[in-house]
Structures are given as structure tokens and as C-alpha cells.
């Protein structure tokens, strides 16, 4: 599905990602954990074409993404739920979702968008209740669900999520992770970036650990959960809680 080899990327002279190699196969949940500033968001932005890699290769569905515009990569079936939700605050919930279906509309027409809208309402019943409300007035958890629903509206082959649990109450986080698991059951592929390492590794098939722009560890999620270094660096605090 997604294959990255020896990739480097950054901003101007600042090299943020160094020699990154990773892959995501169809039907799995892969999580990427790392501390603040490790380069997780930069990695996702590079995959989707908002940031250009300076070296290495990025292949999505066998297609070289390095020169493609972001919207073309989205149209090719790669969706991003951005960090901080980024909903269209001044527009209604339903408008947000329909906009998310833009590439689906171009690919399969309006009827497909309406069908997918129903599917998202079923996945996130709160959104159906609030369909006419302005997105900016939703609670944080609801906005996160809207951001996810909006990304899923394009019926992507790969969904990337950037820290969906940030700033949410444990109960809401559980809801959101449950949806991620359900997405896999429905045959989707998910690349989940998280600081909430325990929860993310708990549902993922495989994981990568990113530190200052390098992948320092990778493996099956269970192995990473059991790894002493990971426990010390990323799971310590949560153990007390």
C-alpha cells in the first residue's frame, strides 16, 4: 500500500526526517509513536504531498508521490485526518462531510457521496444529531469525529490520523480508537500517529518509534509494548494513571 525508502524531508535548511524507511500493508493498523517534535506530522505531510521529500522515495499504491500535488494524492486514495482537527469551522457538520466527499463525487458521482454520508452518520451517530450545527461550535471530541468522518468520506485506501486522541477525555479516546478498529474490520488500512503509545499499540498490528527524525525501533505492536526502552520512554507515565 505505502512504501517509503531512505526518505529525507524538512523545511528549508532544517532536516527534520532522516533516512526514514517504512511500509504499510493493506488491511493493517500501523502506529507511529514519538515525542513532541520527533517529526511525526512532518512525515504524514510528506506522504500526502504538503511537504516535499529531499531524498529517497515515497510510493503509494506503487505510484511515485514525490512530484504529485497534495490533492492528487488525496484523489489517489490517501486521506489525512490532520493534527488539531482543522474542521471547516464556519460551515455545518453536513457541509464538512460533503466536502470530504469531493474526490468521491468526482470519481463516482453524487449518489455515492450521499451513500457514504449515511455510512459516516452510522459510524458517528453524534454527527447525525448535529448535522446542521456549525462545526466550530462542536466539542473537541465531536470535532475529532467530524475530522475523521470527513477524511473517510473520500473512501480512501489509506487513512492517516495525526494524534486523534490529543486533548480528549479517556472515554472519548476509547470511542475514537474503537472506530479505528472498526475501520480495519471493514477492510481499511490505517496509519495512526500517536503520543498515547499504550492505547495506540493496544489496537495496532505493527508499530514504529520515531525519535528526532529517525525510526529507532519497529516491530509487531505486542513486541513494542513489551520492549523495555519503549516502556521507559513512552509508557511510563501512563502506567501510574
Amino acid at each position, binding site marked *: 500500500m505505502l512504501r517509503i525508502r531512505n526518505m529525507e524531508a524538512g523545511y528549508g535548511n532544517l532536516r527534520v526526517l532522516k533516512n526514514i524507511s517504512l511500509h504499510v500493508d493493506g488491511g493493517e493498523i500501523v502506529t507511529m509513536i514519538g515525542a513532541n517534535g520527533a517529526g511525526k506530522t512532518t512525515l504524514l505531510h510528506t506522504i500526502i504531498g504538503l511537504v516535499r521529500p529531499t531524498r529517497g522515495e515515497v510510493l503509494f499504491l506503487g505510484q511515485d508521490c514525490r512530484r504529485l500535488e497534495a*490533492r492528487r494524492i488525496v484523489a489517489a486514495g490517501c486521506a*489525512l485526518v490532520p493534527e488539531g482537527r482543522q474542521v*471547516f469551522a464556519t*460551515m455545518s457538520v453536513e457541509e464538512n462531510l460533503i*466536502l470530504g466527499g*469531493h474526490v468521491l*463525487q468526482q470519481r463516482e458521482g453524487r449518489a455515492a457521496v450521499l451513500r457514504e454520508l449515511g455510512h459516516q452518520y452510522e459510524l458517528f451517530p453524534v454527527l447525525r444529531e448535529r448535522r446542521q450545527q456549525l462545526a466550530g461550535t462542536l466539542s473537541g471530541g465531536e470535532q475529532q469525529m467530524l475530522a475523521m468522518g470527513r*477524511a473517510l468520506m*473520500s473512501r480512501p485506501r489509506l487513512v492517516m490520523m495525526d494524534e486523534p486522541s490529543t486533548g480528549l477525555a479517556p472515554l472519548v479516546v476509547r470511542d475514537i480508537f474503537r472506530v479505528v478498529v472498526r475501520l480495519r474490520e471493514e477492510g481499511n488500512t490505517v496509519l495512526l500517529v500517536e503520543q498515547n503509545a499504550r492505547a495506540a499499540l493496544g489496537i495496532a498490528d505493527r508499530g514504529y518509534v520515531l525519535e528526532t527524525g529517525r525510526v529507532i525501533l519497529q516491530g509487531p505492536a505486542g513486541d513494542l509494548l513489551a520492549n523495555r526502552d519503549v516502556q521507559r520512554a513512552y509508557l511510563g507515565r501512563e502506567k501510574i494513571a
Partner: protein
Amino acid sequence: MTADLFFQYLFAGITYGIMYAIVAIGFNIIYNTTGIINFAQGEFVMLGGMIAISLLHFVPLPLAVAGGVVITMLVGALIEILFIRWLDNPSVLRMIIITIGLSILIREAALHIWGESIRSLPYFYGNEITTITLGPVRISPQVLWVLGVCGIVVLLLSVFFKVTPLGREMRACAANRRAAILCGINARNMVTFSFMLSAGIGALAGCVMSPITYTQYDSGTPLAIKGFTVAILGGLGNSMGAVAAGILLGIIEAYSISFVPLAFQDAISITILLIILFVRPHGLFGSGEAARLKEF
């Protein structure tokens, strides 16, 4: 003031107010998709009038007006493609400075092409002395043209932005450009469309008002100032607010003739602008809630 005069002023106020509102709506369209204020908006109004006047030598009036609108739309698109499109993530301030530069450029170009002479389109129906009696007032049929055309434009626009996919996508770009790109929307094209749309609406307004206000190479600037005042007064991005605010400003200006010297008339809108910016930056009719959700 006699009742007769009272109504004359009222109608004059409403007519000018509607024209300001149309210019303000031009501001709103571009603001709504890009978050920038296009200070060349007044020049679009001037261009529309001027081009139609020139075309009138060759084609009948309706075609000349249509030509003025279409050519101005093309100019709007060209301006966006040449000066705005290639900017990578420009700041709002930089965009504003660019549009001020563009307005000067267009004005100078117009001076070269059309000279300093004052021109106008003929009255769409009848002539200068034709009047229609409407209750206590006698008005020129051109006033009805202005009111009618502007009313239809406002209506069509609000429908366009509310229901059509293109309108929705343009609003999405304004609300959050990066998120719009992540939805697969071609954000650059939306900006071009918004320039075309507001250029076209400005040009149309420039044509219908030309018989009343006349057209000259620099007649766009005062209109831009008033239109901007009205856009702010009505709440940036709010078309219905712009209409209400435009009529308000037009009426205030009309009646002010009895109280302050004519030379001060332009100062009124500047004063109102400053007061509004200090006291209610989200405008009289803009909701504070929606304003808080905006990024600007």
C-alpha cells in the same frame, strides 16, 4: 424639509447605498475564499463601465454590457493568475499590498487607454429626463435598473454559495485552505474563480450605475473606499449585511447634505469606518460567534 424632498433623498440614498453594497459584495466574495481584501475591487467597477462604453461603438447596449462583464472577468482571472497564484503561502498583509499596487496599475492603464474624459453609458430605458412616478417621488427608471439588477445579483449569489458545490468549495477554501486541499479541492482554482466572480459582479454594477454616476479612469477608488466601509459595517463576508449596511450608509450620506457641506460627504464614510473598526470590528450585522470562528 418637505415630505417631497424627504422621499427624494431617501430614494437617492437607497440607490447609492445599493451600489456601495454591490462593491462590498465584491470584497466579500474574494475575502470569503482567500481571506484577503482586494483593494482593486473598485477598479473592476470602473473597467466594466469603461469597456462597455467602448464596445457600444460596435454593438448594441445589452451586448456591450455583457462584453464589459466578460472582459472584466477575464481581467480578474488574469490578475489572479499573474500576481496572486504563484505566491506560496503569502501573508494577508502581503496580499493586501499587492492588491493596492494592482489598483494603481489598472487605474494608470485606464488613464492611458481612455484618457481623463468623463464618459457614461446611455440610460437603459428612456433618457435623463424620463421619470417614473412612484407615490410621492419621481425617479429615473435607471434607479429601478440598479435596484433590480443588484437585488438579483445578491439573491443569486447567496443561492450560489449556499447550495452549489462550487460555492461550497469556495467557502471551504476560505474557512481552512489546507483542509480544503486535503479534501482534494483545487484551492488555486477556487481563488481564480473568486476573482472572476467578483470582477464580473463589479463590472455589472459599473454598467448599471454608469448612466447615473458617470465613469472615469479613477472613479473606482472612492467606490472602493465606500464599498470597504460597507463590507466592514455589514460584517466581512456577509452579503445580506452588506446590503443593509450599504443602504444605511447611502441614506446617511443623502441626508447629510442638509447638515454638512458637500465636500465633507466622503469624510462620513471614513469616520463610520474608523468607528466601526474600533467598536464593532465584526460589523453591525455580523454575528460575533461566526466572527470568532474565522481565522482572520
